[in-house]
């Protein structure tokens, strides 16, 4: 048991040390270098094409591209309507030829996803109803949950480091 625990701790520590190593690790180092140079070339020349990103916002993840509208349920964001915000937690960025995976998130300098708050509204009315049979007990609550709409303005890839 003790050895097993030790092994678990060791793997965890290794995992933590591997945070922010973004590129996928292929079997040999040469292949890895080749891939890295190719990706860097594509980024510098601007031939990566249209990008998509997986973004983490308040406990749920969204797959977005440029010009998308996403709806965040159950809460209002602190930012006001019309304000621009930067989404920091980027888990994955993909293009037609390559995809960068964060462990668990990419570095801040690597990529930039910006969005504006379009709307803050309420959702549809949800009815919460319960009764106990033969006891003449029933309760009805009607709730409307808050929701915010975001538009994704831009997804930029700057560098691999």
């Amino acid at each position: 048991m003790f050895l097993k625990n030790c092994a678990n701790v060791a793997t965890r520590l290794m995992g933590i040390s591997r945070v922010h190593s973004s590129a996928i690790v292929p079997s040999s180092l040469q292949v890895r270098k080749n891939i890295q140079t190719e990706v860097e070339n594509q980024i510098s020349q601007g031939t990566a094409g249209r990008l998509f990103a997986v973004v983490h916002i308040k406990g749920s993840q969204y797959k977005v591209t440029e010009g998308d509208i996403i709806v965040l349920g159950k809460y209002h964001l602190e930012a006001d309507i019309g304000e621009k915000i930067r989404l920091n937690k980027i888990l994955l960025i993909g293009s037609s030829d390559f995809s960068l995976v964060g462990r668990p998130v990419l570095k801040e300098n690597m990529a930039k996803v910006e969005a504006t708050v379009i709307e803050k509204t309420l959702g549809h009315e949800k009815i919460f109803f319960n009764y106990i049979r033969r006891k003449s007990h029933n309760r009805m609550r009607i709730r409307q949950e808050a929701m915010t709409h975001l538009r994704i303005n831009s997804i930029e890839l700057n560098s691999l480091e």
Partner: protein
Amino acid sequence: MVFLTFIRSALNQGPDKYWRIQQQLRFSWHFYGRKRNCYKIGMRYVFKALRYGVSGRKDKLKNMRELWYRRINAGSEEHGLEGKMFLEGLARSEIQLDRKILSSLAIYEPRTFKSLCEVSKNTLKEHNLPFHEKHINSRQNLLKDLINNEKSVEI
């Protein structure tokens, strides 16, 4: 509100009852038979229907989670991995993508999903975990099987 006479109080119960019935009719407009228009008969059915609405919202998430897992399983089996071990490999390599996201990647971004499969395979090998290679749903293998069968028939 104090009613000095019995007649006053009896008169006052009118509108409240009316609105109560109207509320129920709004819920029971799509029913069939007398439970659609009669208040007392429809009451039981409306109660039950509203209760199903509450429990259905909970079940929806559970069902969606199951569906996501099935899609991930189907996607990863194309690349020779069980869905369970694929998720295990991702968790060990500190990739915290959702099941929802992974299922959508499996459908709409097959190349990123393939690379994720390779990552998880590598980490499973590092941790000395066994994974059984399966090729159930892959189209290439299906084609191969079809060709082989044809040959055997010819022979």
